[in-house]
């Protein structure tokens, strides 16, 4: 039970990070508690709910299933890195708002981080493709319908700017 500690060096949202961490520290806890990036949420800590999804070298991963030390030398992107502070929202973020694709907001960062690479690979997805892409993330509030609509909208609006709603 004595801690073994190790120094990790990685990139988080474009910034270099160097930190000594216990080897048993989960990536999710490292992001949230050590770096203060609390936008990444922890819903189950066993890799099912997807709330803690972040990008590792551009690919979605469950940060509760990785140790911080495993990410040494890699590039992590969290929800905080999607829209620079004060800047415009990412098209997916705007579409989520327009379509009411979030209620309590707890699962939302995980959905966004799952969808960012999906949208890159599927610029014009079908509803079936969207639902399959979402099926690894749990949402308890929305019934998913408006999340599907938000992905559709984001796909449309990446081509043409949208009109503001009330």
């Amino acid at each position, binding site marked *: 039970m004595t801690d073994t500690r190790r120094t990790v060096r990685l990139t988080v949202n474009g910034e270099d990070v160097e930190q000594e961490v216990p080897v048993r520290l989960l990536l999710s806890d490292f992001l949230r508690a050590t770096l203060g990036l609390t936008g990444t949420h922890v819903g189950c800590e066993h890799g099912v709910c997807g709330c803690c999804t972040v990008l590792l070298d551009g690919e979605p991963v469950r940060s509760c299933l990785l140790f911080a030390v495993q990410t040494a030398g890699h590039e992590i992107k969290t929800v905080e890195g999607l829209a620079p502070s004060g800047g415009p929202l990412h098209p997916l973020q705007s579409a989520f708002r327009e379509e009411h694709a979030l209620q309590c907001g707890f699962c939302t960062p995980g959905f966004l981080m799952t969808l960012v690479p999906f949208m890159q690979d599927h610029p014009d997805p079908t509803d079936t493709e969207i639902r399959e892409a*979402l099926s690894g993330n749990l949402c308890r509030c929305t*019934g998913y319908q408006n999340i599907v609509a938000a992905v559709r909208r984001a796909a449309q609006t990446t081509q043409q700017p949208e009109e503001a709603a009330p």
Partner: protein
Amino acid sequence: MTTRWFGQPVRRNEDERFLTGHGNYVDDINPPGSLHAAVLRSPLAHARITRIDVEAARTLPGVVAVWTWQELGDVWRPSPMVVPNDALTHPRTQYPLARDTVNYVGEAVAFVVAQDRSIAEDACDLIEVDYEPLPAVIDLEEAVAEGTPLVHEDVPGNVAAVLTQQVGDVERAFAEADHVFEERLYLERSAGQPMETRAIVAQWDDIERVLTMWDTTQAPLSIRNGLAVLLGLPENAVRVVAPDVGGGFGTKIMMFYPEEVLVPLAALRLHRPIKWAEDRREHLIASNHERGQVHYASIAVRSDGTILGVKDVFLHDAGAYTPYGIVVPIVTSTQLPGPYRLPNYFSESRTVYTNRVPVTPYRGAGRPHGCFVMERLVDLVAGELGMDRAEVRFKNFIQPDEFPWDVGLTFQDGAPTRYDSGNYPEGLRQALDAIDYQGFRQMQEGLRKQGRYVGLGMASYVEGTGIGPYEGAHVRVDGTARRVVVATCVGTQGQGHQTSFAQIVADELGVRPDQVEITTGDSRSMNWGSGTYASRSAVVTGNAVGSASRAVRDKAAALASELFEANPDDIEFEDERVFVKGSPEFGLPIWDIAVVANPIRYAYGTQAEQAIRLLKTREGPPLPEGTDPGLEARKYFSPPQATFASGNHAAIVEVDPETGTVSILKYVAVHDCGRVINPMIVEGQVHGGVAQGIGGSFYERLVYDREGQPLSTTFLDYLIPTAMEVPEIECRHVETPSPLNPLGIKGAGEAGVIPVPALMAQALDDALGPFNVRVREMPLNPGEIRALVRDGL
């Protein structure tokens, strides 16, 4: 009031912070110097504790405190009986830590505080507890059988309460009926399972002498009031904040979960901030569950399908304690009649202790069970009499001109179950139209020829919402910040209160909803109130917000009439301006009116400076007697009784009889929650409720083995529906305004979930008609559906 914003799908004020990762959930709060707590829980469902040895845990480096019941002193008290009832003859509530016996797997036994969570959990592993196992009472029907062991030694027969309610003369109705049909019906346990588990951070502030607790509760004021008593602190020395909360669904309202006592006590005693966050396994085994009832129901009818009476005797699984008394079985029994005329009705519930997690309301709160029973009985009537199931429903619906309709029962709030308004036939007509009930039979027959089995289900419910006692709101125009600031103290868990309440304010004061800042869930901003439950916040707090906004408007109009020498009735509010009707040049921004309303008159801005000069010098004090400075008001709304929302859902499902899998091809929800503040938000609530109902019909199940070991301890075992299982839901609104509140609104939060198991049962029966399937329990997994197909043949 113009209704520029009320009724519009206004996008939410709360979204931007959630979308950018800047929400403020309890587990995001990290006061410097925090210690971390973990709870040691019982591994057995029923056992006597013979020894607890904490020495090894105490000496582990990094451990700050290890407590058993002995260390709790005066705080070691049973949690309060929140909702007493004469029928509850044997209430039992839980202590923060178990002493002599444990009564369910997951019950708190010891509490550890350490430098970090990992060390706290390591220390839990070092605590030695000797248990002498006792026989566990798990099965609900066995629990009341002769000779069954007892959960609590002093509760004979494991029965906490027997509640009977009666309308009319049931025996006579059954004697005179042409037909009587009966059925045993069962709904298994499931639970809210919000994506955010419970969490608490508590901190004692030595400078302000205030204990602050950030808690994922739905009822921060109730927790504050109780905690102050328990800890011996004045109310104003305890502040409870429910910041952003990641879903609640009823699970997060409890007086108290053990950690809601232990964590603040540790903060007080150790003078350090303390953090505790539940993991999912703890949430599944130790946060409250619901559903879990077995009904023995019968219905008496005439040959033409007219319902004469219903008898329903049921067992309600309370789990090991009854912190909510018999609220859930009361709701089941009073909401069972639903939209139907039921002149004769007898209901008897027995609330039964078992060695499982306590049961407290989860979205629907007893209604899905009642709806399941009534709708299954109506289906039985249609089936046995060879009548069309829609026809039986239309024949027995309460008609639109029959309101108010007195069901003849006492509701959960102690007031009569009196339906205030509704239009049930219109709702079902719309649902059947949207699902194409007329064309369905042909489609069904066509598909059957191809070997495909589709079925249609329909179900209706009535939901009492918006119960008292009251809620309040404080509305203030902050002229210098150019914002309207509103304080309420209901918790918010995703319902969009910060938007829908803002819409109400915006209409009264002529501002935009995004200029209105709504505080929720902070006991410091509102001293009186109750919480978010029973689909009540929009109704009760919404009307308080409306009333306080109206008072602010009246005050601003009076001041403007003085400034512009006009009649107060001629003052209008629009686009942030307060002006004389027909003469918009005589007007000022509402923000400047707010500045002028303060006689200290720090007139920031030239317009306000000029406005102050318009004020005539008055005799007497600058603040005339009976007036308050500023544009602000505090109002409360206390409804006389519940207001009754309703809905009619219909769906078409396809079942594969070989694999037992079900897919939902089409789903329609027609919903009546009176006047709709924000249809986008209401539809979102319906979608989420239906998704939970689908979970409760086919996927979600809290399984225990015969020794009381919970087997659904991860999300791999407890299956939350994903985007692959939840279909597109078509929503339609029927609006019958409530006459019981000024805004005409009814609650909407829980509605979606209520009819789903009833509807799915009927759809399965219909799809599997060739196999003579009749569904009598929910949820059903594919294996169980296959067994129904096999046994029906």
